[in-house]
């Protein structure tokens, strides 16, 4: 693993986030930061609030208390649309692709926010729309080349095996040229070879494009190998935060995973 990236200043700061759904306290006073160009893992037992944390960063859920600061802009409530246009892209645990559309079209939708021509221009297929389509198609083809999915370019996504669908979703998020990448269990349901492939792509994204990555993952091997720093959540609270080796040896973390009576 080559690591000549410079990890910079915090690009994302999550401050004292508390999120409840009625009586269910999904997150309680969680604070951590993510530095530029690093790979940050969020781990914890099931139900710890990891996906909820990503949803808060992304603006899908609005926390009752706490703020999210991205690239210096602090907001109490983030709108998903705004988060996306600021440069946050994400993948979903259970895949949220358009099953009837081809791989190419799905990844093109990732360019949506970058399209400047209006509806009329695109409908009439005039000059600016055509040029823009070519630009976007070129970028998307580069993503396809990067992820090695040329052979399924025209295949409807619904027909693809799970591992490839996940790769396509990664592609869609990549096509948006994000600065912050939120990956929700990218390795779920994959065998060793597929995990290795996915790891390689994630590392390549981080290395080649300098994208900051926040990653939820259960496979400890992957977490230890890939991430620069780790946040551990349990029952909605942060119980550890630091380098993978520090976190691995932390007693609270071990208890959380092995299960100690609360």
């Amino acid at each position, binding site marked *: 693993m080559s690591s000549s990236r410079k990890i910079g200043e915090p690009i994302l700061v999550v401050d004292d986030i508390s999120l409840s759904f009625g009586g269910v306290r999904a997150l309680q006073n969680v604070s951590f930061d993510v530095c530029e160009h690093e790979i940050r893992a969020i781990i914890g037992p099931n139900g710890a609030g990891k996906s909820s944390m990503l949803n808060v960063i992304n603006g899908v859920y609005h926390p009752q208390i706490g703020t999210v600061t991205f690239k210096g802009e602090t907001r109490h409530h983030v709108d998903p649309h705004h988060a996306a246009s600021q440069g946050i892209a994400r993948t979903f645990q259970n895949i949220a692709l358009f099953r009837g559309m081809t791989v190419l079209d799905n990844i093109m939708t990732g360019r949506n926010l970058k399209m400047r021509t209006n509806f009329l221009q695109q409908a009439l297929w005039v000059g600016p729309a055509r040029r823009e389509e070519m630009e976007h198609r070129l970028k998307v083809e580069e993503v396809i*080349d990067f992820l090695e999915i040329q052979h399924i370019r025209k295949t409807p996504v619904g027909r693809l095996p799970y591992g490839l669908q996940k790769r396509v979703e990664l592609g869609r998020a990549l096509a948006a040229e994000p600065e912050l990448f939120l990956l929700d269990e990218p390795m779920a349901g994959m065998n060793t070879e597929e995990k290795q492939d996915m790891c390689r792509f994630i590392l390549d994204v981080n290395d080649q494009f300098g994208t900051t990555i926040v990653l939820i993952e259960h496979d400890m091997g992957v977490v230890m190998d890939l991430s620069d720093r780790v946040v551990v959540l349990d029952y909605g609270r942060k119980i550890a935060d630091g380098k993978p080796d520090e976190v691995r040896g932390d007693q609270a973390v071990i208890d959380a995973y092995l299960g100690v009576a609360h």
Partner: protein
Amino acid sequence: MAESALDTFPRLLLHHAKVRGDRPATREKDLGIWQTWTWSEVAVEVRSLACGLAELGFKRGDNLAIIGDNRPRLYWAMTAAQCLGGVPVPLYQDAVAQEMTFVLENAEIRFAIVEDQEQVDKLLEIKSQCPQLQHILYDDPRGLRHYTQTEIQSLDEVMEMGRIHDRNQPDFLDGEIAKGRPEDVAVMLYTSGTTGQPKGVCQTHAAFITAAKTGCEFDKLGPDDEILSYLPMAWVGDHLFSYAQAIYAGFTINCPESGDTVITDLREIGPTYYFAPPRVFENLLTQVMIRMEDAGAIKRWMFHYFMEVARRCGAEILDGKSEVTATDRLLYSFGNLFVYGPLRNVLGMSRIRVAYTAGAAIGPDLFRFYRSIGINLKQLYGATETCAAVCLQPDGQIKFDTVGPPAPGVEVRIADNGEVLVRGQVMLKEYYKRPDATAESIDAEGYFHTGDAGFFDPDGHLKIIDRAKDVGKLANGAMFAPNYIENKLKFFSYIKEAVAFGHGRDMVCAFINIDLGAVGNWAERRNIGYSGYTDLAQRQEVYSLIGECVEKCNAELALDAVLSNSQVHRFLILHKELDPDDDELTRTRKVRRGFVAEKYKVLIDALYSGKHSQFIETQVKFEDGRSGMINADLRITDAKVFDIAAGKKAA
């Protein structure tokens, strides 16, 4: 500039650049689009590459290793090396690092031009064992940004250096090209080595140009033809078709986007000239059969009905024979409209004027299938040592079980022991640094010993039986040609590979590899679940299925007095596919009989001692070179055998 003879490849290239500079020479699908380079553009690129190599110190007589998938720059690198009087040495891109060590050392490689990071990594891994390797030049920069080794350089950089060199010394390259002689070695191709270490076959410009010329004249190939270049560059067949013939005739080579997209790219290009080993045609046929099972009832009926028509008269119609009845002709033309035409289209073969297959003996049934749907598939026979062109089948004289008469300019003789001997311009100059092997293979009269056993039929067409070494005798003295039996078995889409044993034994037994795609599909239709290749291969239902295939094969063998002795009495299905990475097959997927017999000795013993099951544990190599163990209890089954020549079921 004095008019020089077109007797070396660089001179041929310059000729095309002058005479048809605007016509497409090379295409590659990249980022979803076909990018084209014309002949004059290719000449410019080759110049830059050659001068760049010269700048780095590549000298006349040096060998240049070329490793990667079919990429324009790798083909151009071959010409660039030849411009400077060097010799390109293409290697198999899927070889693991250790396999490459032998060739790199043997050929004393100092310069290597490789496709991408994967190949760079392999070379770096073995660099300590090949200290003379000083320059690793790569085409695709992906993943190589942080590599700091001094040996590694991008081709872009080298070509830029070359352009500057060419500007400063404009006469240098032309001078070098002028020094080339037709008897210089043009390329070195290492034979796959079913036994022993690979040998570097040195072929001259004259030899390959002769082979190219013969083929082009034979099939009337010209500058308007299109070919898809997807077979390993290290294989003599690809070198003949995509390099020698392309540069001789001036037609266009098209490089597909990646190994996975070949079928789509084939459809997009619609080549006029096509070459594929029998395995590819087998796979295509298997795919077609699988897809047909998915089709609706009407389509299935149409397919089977018209395929029957084709089987009756299709090949004869293609050959222009007159014995076909008018009714059959009418039916065939309907078939063409509804079935064969669309089928050819889906296979990407609509524009094919000539398709060749070679490399291993092809099953007659498979061959007939393609001809019957209007694809002019022909056989050619040759070896790396003969530039692949010993026998060519002429249009209109296609027989399914022969490889045709000797090509123009090639003499073929059968030795007393049945071995095929060849003499002609297309022969190798020598085996690199192996005067002993050279002396062994080329006899006093100048005939090359091919190592294949064969005979001429009454029409003067050569019929290849098997590798001479593999042809054996059963215990009762009857001839045993394993390849023939295996090809018959492999025609069934369910059987991917077969290895027959019987030399010195009283009956023939076989190992079978199932085709995961075809058998998996079959199993799914019958709601048979399975957890992977090994599991599927051991199912009782699959054994019955394969047993039926073996039985059909036996029934056909029983019709011939001699072959009937070779019926398969017992068989087993292997728990894993035979793989070149495990040294069981060569890189061109020929079975390494001796090695397989050694490795699976316990299974062979079990087959012949009447056992009904046998445990086996074997080592496997993963694609990155690591090893693992895989084991299974293999079931062994008897197959129905038929009475000799009577065709009646044996008790």
